[in-house]
């Protein structure tokens, strides 16, 4: 395992000026991705997760975004590169797969031609060779009869096959990093399972790092070694996958885990939703962005910005929360035992006034 992370995002801020005000899509984001590893980024709509991936690819530049911070890829700061230098990386060293494969593939061109185009954008390769490579890749991603299918159009593929084709297209130049933005959301559950299994297999075979961006906790549970939870443009918690589900530290993560129905474990009578809705990115709550919806918030949480700190005893586990670690541990113990947030709060007592 190499010491230097493949991708390091440092204090990334991305803003978009719009008619209604400035949209603070990403607000001080920092995370690492190591070679050959999988990072899951979990967030709901308005969390900024997609903007952060698009910014890594340099695709937010033309949207009039104001970007600050650093994105280090193999030591180079992507934000300082020229458009041409970024273009050379895109689809080459860093590739991206998007959510809806029907609208993400060009409807007028054959799938094979689109893969060939991705290849020849970065490598000087004769057409026949590129065509053969496209067939090879379609086979690699599990499309039967690739020699024939390579000449089909996107609408002639099924949903799952289209996503496989998109993955094939992203892999054609053997990227070191693959960013998958909601790769399975538009797909049926059995097809989802196949695509995730495919991604796992490809990662092993190609030693590729993957960042999987999704709102589905099940998907990151399945795929990711590390998970970063985003809320309103910030990462609120980062942890190894097992720790995130067994000992989460942030009230938002608790809220998510308690509000999602599960397939295993006892059937919960009432789900515990997080009250309110995700905030607008134009008018965000001050201080801790989650405080209006947090059952354990204190008055000063509206004034102080939480910093990301490691959890005591777990250096790989970081959380950005203003509550005392000990208080958090106690609250989680209550929630885990089945108490509601209100009950947990009473049981633990006032978080800061604890004797």
């Amino acid at each position: 395992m190499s010491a230097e992370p493949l991708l390091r995002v440092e204090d990334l801020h991305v803003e978009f000026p719009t008619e209604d005000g400035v949209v603070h899509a990403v607000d001080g984001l920092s995370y690492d991705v190591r070679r050959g590893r999988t990072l899951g980024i979990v967030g709901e709509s308005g969390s900024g997760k997609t903007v952060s991936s698009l910014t890594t690819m340099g695709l937010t530049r033309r949207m009039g975004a104001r970007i600050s911070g650093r994105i280090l890829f193999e030591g180079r700061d992507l934000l300082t590169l020229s458009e041409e230098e970024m273009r050379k990386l895109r689809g080459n060293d860093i590739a991206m797969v998007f959510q809806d494969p029907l609208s993400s593939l060009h409807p007028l061109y054959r799938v094979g031609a689109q893969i060939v185009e991705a290849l020849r954008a970065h490598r000087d390769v004769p057409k026949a060779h590129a065509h053969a490579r496209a067939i090879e890749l379609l086979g690699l991603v599990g499309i039967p009869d690739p020699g024939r299918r390579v000449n089909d159009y996107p609408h002639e593929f099924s949903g799952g096959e289209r996503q496989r084709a998109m993955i094939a297209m992203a892999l054609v130049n053997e990227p070191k990093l693959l960013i998958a933005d909601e790769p399975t959301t538009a797909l049926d559950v059995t097809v989802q399972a196949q695509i995730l299994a495919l991604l796992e297999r490809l990662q092993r075979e190609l030693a590729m790092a993957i960042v999987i961006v999704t709102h589905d906790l099940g998907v990151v549970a399945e795929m990711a070694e590390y998970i970063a939870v985003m809320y309103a443009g910030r990462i609120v918690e980062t942890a190894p996958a097992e720790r995130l589900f067994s000992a989460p530290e942030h009230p938002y993560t608790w809220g998510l885990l308690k509000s999602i129905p599960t397939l295993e474990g006892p059937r919960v009578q009432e789900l515990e939703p997080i009250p309110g809705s995700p905030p607008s990115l134009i008018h965000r709550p001050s201080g801790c962005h989650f405080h209006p919806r947090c059952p354990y918030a204190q008055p000063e949480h509206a004034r102080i910005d939480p910093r990301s700190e490691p959890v005591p005893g777990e250096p790989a586990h970081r959380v950005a929360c203003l509550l005392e670690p000990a208080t958090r541990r106690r609250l989680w113990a209550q929630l885990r035992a089945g108490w509601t947030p209100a009950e947990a709060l009473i049981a633990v007592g006032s978080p800061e006034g604890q004797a």
Partner: protein
Amino acid sequence: MSTAAGEGLGTRPGEPLVQVRELVKHFPITRGIIFQRRIGATKAVDGVSFEVQRGETLGIVGETGCGKTTTARLIMRLLDATAGEIRFDGQDITRLKGAPLKAVRREMQMVFQDPYSSLNPRKTIGSIISEPFAIHGLHRDSSERKRTVRELMDTVGLNPEHYNRYPHEFSGGERQRIGVARALALKPKLLIADEPVSALDVSIQAQVLNLLRDMQRRFGLTLVLISHDLSVVRHMCDRVAVMYRGEIVELAFNEELYSQPSHPYTRALLAAVPGARKDRRTIPE
């Protein structure tokens, strides 16, 4: 014990609210230059039979194209069945038309999937929720109507002061509440929810599911929940029907289906849910 047809499993006394027998819906495929010949058919629903007991929550689960939404539309008589029988509250409604059908429509309502397109963007939510009254000639007095609508808004957790706002001013979860309020306006006996939370953020889904549960208890509704999400169905439903290619392949009580699924497709579905194989998603005791 799970049966293929699920009939006769009622543990509540009295007749089931909905009875569906051998329901079939074919969409014709035509071809021809001047005169269209029918050369085949898409069998969206191909011989489906089940019952829904009063007060129960039945889940219909399946992947794209399995026929679950078509089945719902057939029960609601938004589509005409090709064959088979639909009985609602003891009455055969399969071929009903006109005034009798309109009367039946008051008793069954639907909540739709996409909160962004299922509400008319040009109408205030007050008028959206009161539209059923206008259609069925109820609450003709406008101040009484307004009062009833505002009560409904309060019941579903909306601020009654927002009576004159437009859909785009609300979030997805709130819009879904508007849809529920509209569906409940006529105090129906049956509520069919077609993927009511699929388009919503994860943290909001629980709010809407709780709301449906709540409304069911308060109004004594019978609820049919259609979803592709097995976890949601597990949480909400007493019995679950699994559909595949227009047929029900398994229909069982909740606990049995999830702990001992008998049909291979059900097992495949359960195994395919991400995170299902690894036990990471459970909150350990």
